[in-house]
């Protein structure tokens, strides 16, 4: 695997920091509010990044550490922050995330929270500490680590067994989550979906604006996870130590099925078959019909797809799953790149025609694009630099997307969603082919020299 061009520097990052992942996770938990322990900047930047992607207000409080607390410890600020968050937002859960600063000055947030609770006997607010040093790993790990911490927080000693299936949903859009819920309904099985951002990060317009958006995974759902029948974790490339499913399996024996996101025919097949296997139920006719329709569509477009040579990049999971969608449709994944460490990427995807890169930055990706010349870019908005300079069409997917609208509505999972997304890819290729093709063929083929070429 190739790494960065620069050894001591990341130029144009293809990754974000842990508390960003932590924030994305908490945003899918019902009635929760985030308090970032650190200086003001981190919270503001992270809010801004999320707000432009989801087009939703994203409130994240900060303990706003300044010079003084950085030297003498920020426990007073954090406690004060918790009080103010309760006053302003009245949440059921407060997720306290650390930042680089808090970690570096050695803040023990768990202890501080305990002190706070001892002094203020509050029972109606759960305060969940999660350690997310920005330098520890990327937002990808931060996301799953936070979900794991939330599940651990609510874990009981002896869980009540139930028939539900836990779904750990990484890298999905609100529309994707809604699609998974629909599939659950078709199967008539209860999902514990976490984090459920289907409403919280894709809100509707209502007369009454509520500061903490409605929806999200409920505490009851989280509590029932340890007694569930199985866990499906849509995070194939994740290291075990961050894995929520691994925790549930090791501690409670909840069987873990780790798999890629249900994107593409094979990706979706795996997901559907696994549910059928876990529940012992037969696959709903509707899903079968959707699958047949997808296959039909894939046949329709296979010849056009063969001309695709794509750069696919972003978070490890979405990158891998889309790479698979491309492969099964004859689109060459020319460059496959992620900024996270995700060493497993190479293990799951390896092809002589593809350059696979992890822990990489956009400076390096860009130089490889110049060398290998893909005709299609698939990934988040951060590829816009390459799009702008190389004039190659960019299909936006993943996080963050802030130069296009509708990222929260983008559907890429499921048979129907995958097919819609594939159509977008195919149509982009068709446009490339059709644009100026009369002129191109005239220039290429018409014998302007009067037979000189073969003379």
């Amino acid at each position, binding site marked *: 695997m190739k790494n960065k061009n*620069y*050894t*001591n*520097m*990341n*130029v*144009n*990052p293809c*990754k*974000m*920091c842990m508390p*960003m992942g932590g924030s994305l996770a908490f945003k899918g938990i019902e009635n929760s509010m985030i308090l970032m322990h*650190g*200086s*003001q*900047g*981190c919270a*503001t*930047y*992270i*809010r*801004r990044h999320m*707000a*432009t992607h989801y*087009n*939703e*207000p994203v*409130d994240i*409080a*900060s303990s*706003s*550490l*300044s*010079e003084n*607390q*950085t030297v003498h410890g920020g426990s007073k*600020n*954090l406690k004060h*922050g*918790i009080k*103010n*968050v309760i*006053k*302003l*937002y*009245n949440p059921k859960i407060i997720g306290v995330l650390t930042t*680089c*600063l808090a970690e*570096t*000055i050695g803040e023990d947030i768990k202890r501080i929270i305990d002190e706070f609770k001892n002094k203020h*006997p*509050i029972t*109606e607010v759960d305060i969940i500490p999660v350690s997310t040093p*920005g*330098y520890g790993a990327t937002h990808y790990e931060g996301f799953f680590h936070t979900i794991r911490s939330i599940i651990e927080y609510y874990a009981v000693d002896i869980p009540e067994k139930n028939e539900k299936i836990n779904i750990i949903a990484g890298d999905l859009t609100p529309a994707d989550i809604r699609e998974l819920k629909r599939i659950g309904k078709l199967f008539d099985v209860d999902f514990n979906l976490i984090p459920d951002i289907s409403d919280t990060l894709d*809100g509707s*317009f209502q007369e009454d*604006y509520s*500061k903490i958006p409605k929806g999200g995974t409920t505490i009851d759902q989280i509590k029932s996870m340890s007694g569930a029948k199985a866990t499906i974790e849509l995070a194939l490339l994740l290291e075990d130590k961050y894995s929520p499913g691994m925790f549930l399996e090791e501690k409670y024996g909840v069987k873990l099925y780790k798999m890629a996101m249900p994107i593409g025919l094979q990706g979706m097949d795996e997901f559907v078959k696994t549910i059928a296997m876990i529940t012992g139920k037969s696959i709903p006719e509707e899903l079968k019909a959707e699958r047949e329709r997808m296959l039909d569509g894939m046949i329709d477009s296979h010849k056009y797809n063969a001309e695709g040579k794509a750069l696919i990049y972003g978070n490890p999971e979405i990158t891998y799953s889309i790479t698979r969608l491309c492969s099964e449709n004859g689109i060459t994944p020319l460059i496959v790149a992620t900024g996270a460490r995700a060493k497993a990427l190479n293990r799951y995807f390896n092809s002589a025609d593809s350059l696979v890169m992890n822990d990489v930055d956009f400076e390096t990706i860009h130089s490889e694009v110049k060398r290998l010349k893909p005709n299609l870019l698939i990934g988040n908005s*951060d590829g816009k630099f390459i799009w702008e300079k190389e004039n190659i069409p960019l299909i936006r997917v993943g996080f963050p997307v802030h130069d296009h609208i509708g990222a929260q509505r983008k559907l890429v999972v499921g048979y129907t969603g995958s097919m819609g997304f594939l159509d977008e890819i195919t149509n982009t290729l068709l446009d490339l082919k059709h644009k100026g093709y009369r002129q191109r063929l005239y220039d290429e083929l018409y014998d302007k020299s009067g037979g000189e070429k073969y003379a």
Partner: protein
Amino acid sequence: MKSEKSFALDERKEHILINKSGSNAIKCDQNSVSGAVSQRACVYCGARVVLNPITDAVHIVHGPIGCASYTWDIRGSLSSGSENFRNSFSTDLQEKDIIFGGEKKLELAIAEIVEKVNPKTVFVYSTCVVGVIGDDIEAVCKEAEKKYSIKVIPVQSSGFAGSKKDGYKAACNAIISLMDSGSKMADIKDKRSFNYLGEFNLAGEIWILGRYFNALGLKLITGMTGDSSTEKLKKAKDASFNIVQCAGSSIYLAEQMKEKYQIDYERVSFFGIDDTSESLRKLAGLSKDEKVMEKAEAFINLMIEETRGILKDYKNRCKGKKVAIYVGGGFKAISLIKQFNELGMETVMVGTQTGRKEEYEKIKELSNEGTVILDDTNPSELESFIKEKGADLLVGGVKERPLAYKLGIAFIDHNHERKHPLCGYEGAVNFAKEVDITVNSPVWDLVRGGGLDEK
């Protein structure tokens, strides 16, 4: 503890003012309140705002990845030359660097950049963590400067060490150090030559004004820092006078230049017809050149007539609407109030992130009785005052946009990311157009319609 919801915290009360004659001064210039979801960023953000537009410089963010990732190419400054500044260089500090220090890594990073990019100037920004682990970036920069004979300037911008304003100051000091390294100040100065401080060439704004300056026979040496370069900044001392637009960020620089190089300055604003005309007149006066002054009068009259003609239509469509403003600096708020007056609209709420006392005084003077004035506000306060005052439109940054839309009101982007110029006469028209587009959009009729319940 009682968890009763309220929109305002006690400790925020003095930061809120309802305007009436003889009312007290507002409390400003303080650290943000912990847990209150301030809309502010950090010292680093402030420093980056000012230095970022220096086009041929390499900006290295010395710290963990997030700070660099969230600020990569997010500002709309344009360049007529190099695009170095659009890249985001980060030392991407890891856990081991936090423990053992990041100086060595920084040193090697600078070496790599010199080898690969060979810039004339490198800025090294310190972030929160670097401030805590005690890397001596001054020493590293000094060493590098000697070794490579280029300017390597440290910017002390640890996020916690103050507010955005301290970042502005750090940036101004960096610019001074760059100017100092240039050749000796010219003995004889052209009295029509000047610099334009607090201008960042967002969406090409300095190019609009540059055309005016040329038409008047004035000589702009450089924007500070819009569309500037190492060479241009080194020549800045040769100016006969300076004009300052964004005072919050650049008044300190103007003061320093006055002290060091005896260059006087005047404050200007090129937002709105009145401010633009007045500023051009002032500028012509500063040249002490009769011909320039004459030309200016003719030019101004012509432009006013033309612009008023175009604006009439917009005014008819927009007048009577109510406006809420929440922007970064006080100067921006002031010119916005005036511009809305030009359109016959009333400002019912004004807030700034980092406004100064004098600016708040001016705001009080310009606004009607009952207008709400806010310092460093948060989403809760914004929401309740927007509702209470019945605003039809919010002016703010990207983070505020989704809030406005959720509340069902129009929105204007007035931030560093915008893609359309708002200054000068052309800008005044663009502004009116944007107000009209959003305030009079058909979508609000649907929002206010009865929905499916309507008979």
